């Protein structure tokens, strides 16, 4: 009797396990189908008013999903006011965009580039027109929606969920630095190792704002991770304070002390994401290091004034001395954060129209 009960329980357990793993596999497949739909949408110019601008135009794989321009352009060819942020390892962020702690959900955030009118970005149509427009795309969406949702209905919630799912697949953890940490001591040059030591040093203090695995977390004095941290790094301080074209976090929070605060982005793939800063005001890493070494910028972009004196400037940006050799070492280390496999991974590239045609 006891043996029977035991084997019965075992059977039941196995059954539960197989149902669980089947479910897991099933939901894994659904997630994959959702991301695959999202990849097509991400590369589809038909999401924009003039059918000329896809997410992928301002977030290009070759630049770690930033776009190499100082400012990005909208569907009408007009420049915006901010530098495109790179997209990878997005789970490590508490909020998205340069300075908006309200944007805690990737799916919701997608509504901003799609529909914003200040500034105008993609200027997408209301969903009925948009859905109609997608039927004229080079991609065949019916099987993609079907695979992800079980039917072919195109809704805004589905579009943004798919875009979010695709962006969450953008994982980049295969830089020489990662290989070095994993035990391959050949992965970093001596120069890069010297740069790493400088980067980690108290003297430079880079880690205060670029902490954690993704170099985007602020650590407090006890080394604890602080959530949603934004910093004024002393880029500007004119008679007007910060240039009014972009006041960063202050625009969302209406707290005077947030004037000129922006997020600390990840430093992974940083050699690919030039130009730098929220307004793309710095073309080279050497200029960025110079800025932090001085503890603020003087007359940046022709804006008269010394950002070092900005009263909102973070106390963590206090400046440090650095020799030319050390600067090169630091740059060598930052270059070793580049994941060249990531920018070549075909899973993240523009979907092949022909491969898609075969699906039909």
């Amino acid at each position, binding site marked *: 009797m006891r043996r029977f009960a035991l084997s019965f329980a075992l059977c039941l357990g196995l059954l539960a396990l197989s149902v669980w793993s089947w479910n897991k596999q099933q939901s894994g497949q659904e997630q994959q189908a959702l991301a695959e739909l999202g990849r097509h949408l991400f590369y589809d110019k038909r999401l924009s008013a003039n059918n000329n601008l896809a997410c992928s135009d301002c977030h290009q794989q070759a630049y770690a999903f930033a776009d190499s321009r100082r400012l990005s352009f909208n569907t009408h060819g007009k420049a915006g006011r901010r530098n495109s942020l790179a997209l990878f390892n997005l789970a490590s962020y508490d909020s998205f965009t340069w300075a908006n702690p*309200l944007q805690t959900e990737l799916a*919701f955030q997608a509504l901003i580039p799609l529909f914003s009118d200040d500034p105008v970005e993609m200027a997408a149509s209301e969903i009925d027109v948009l859905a109609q427009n997608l039927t004229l795309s080079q991609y065949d969406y019916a099987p993609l929606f079907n695979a992800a949702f079980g039917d072919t209905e195109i809704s805004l*919630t589905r579009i943004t969920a798919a875009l979010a799912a695709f962006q969450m697949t953008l994982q980049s953890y295969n830089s020489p630095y990662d290989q070095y940490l994993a035990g391959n001591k050949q992965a970093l040059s001596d120069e890069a190792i010297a740069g790493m030591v400088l980067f980690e040093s108290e003297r430079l203090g880079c880690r205060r704002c670029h902490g954690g695995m993704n170099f985007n977390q602020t650590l407090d004095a006890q080394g604890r991770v602080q959530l949603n941290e934004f910093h004024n790094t002393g880029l500007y301080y004119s008679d007007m304070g910060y240039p009014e074209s972009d006041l960063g976090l202050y625009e*969302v*929070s*209406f707290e005077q002390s947030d004037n000129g605060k922006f997020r600390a982005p990840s430093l992974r793939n940083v050699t690919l994401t030039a130009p730098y800063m929220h307004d793309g005001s710095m073309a080279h890493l050497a200029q960025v290091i110079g800025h932090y070494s001085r503890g603020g910028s003087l007359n940046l972009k022709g804006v008269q004034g010394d950002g070092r004196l900005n009263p909102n400037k973070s106390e963590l940006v206090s400046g440090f001395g650095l020799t030319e050799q050390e600067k090169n070492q630091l740059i060598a280390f930052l270059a070793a954060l580049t994941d060249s496999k990531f920018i070549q991974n075909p899973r993240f590239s523009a979907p092949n129209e022909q491969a898609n045609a075969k699906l039909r």
Partner: protein
Amino acid sequence: MVTMKQMMLVIACLWLFGCAESKTETVILPFSLNFEGQEVTCSSALQVNALTLYIHDLALQELSGQWQKVELDNALNSPWQNESIALLDLAPCQTNQMGLTSVVMKVKPGQYRGVRFRIGVPEALNHQDPQLARAPLDINQLQWHWTVGYKFAYFDLAWREQTVKHHLGSSGCVGNIGDDIQCKYQNRPEIVLPSYQLGQPIKLELRQFFTELPHARCFGKPQDKGCDTLFNLLGLQDAPQRIFRLGA
């Protein structure tokens, strides 16, 4: 089997219900635009590219001074309103109307001496997931995604060489989507118009939006130069509002 008694009960219920219904009458509250006292039309010197308002919390004041909450009638099943909130689109001669030019109020018969309403989307609905919102809150153009709210009022006007572009909504907000979001500035002006009589229209006088600023803008950012005028005109600062008045 349905007995006679049950039948009687049903009939009585219907009769009572019908009677309760007939206790209110429907009264139209029309809105329109004025410029320097003249009705704005397609050929006016003032060009209205867009002008939309969300309104809610409509109430009428009885002669006793008591305010009576008024429900909106939606017998026509308009996509621009529900029982509690309506979207007005007051731009003349449009091809794509995005709202109503009047609302239908369910009014208890009687005499009234005032009308009031609030511009904006009620707090309870303002931070919902707009992708799940029902009409009239399901319009992307009026969702203010970067603040996780709505554009309560939307003005896009041009006159001579001057332009006026305003988005009014709650600002200075903190919190998480789907959770609790709190805003420092609610920006839901209450418009109170005394000596209202049933049937009277409401006029918006727009001339005052044009000040010395050639391009007045208030897009909800602290540095926007046009906000002071907008807030002042709508009565969000110390003085009462100066835009809405009763017509003949």
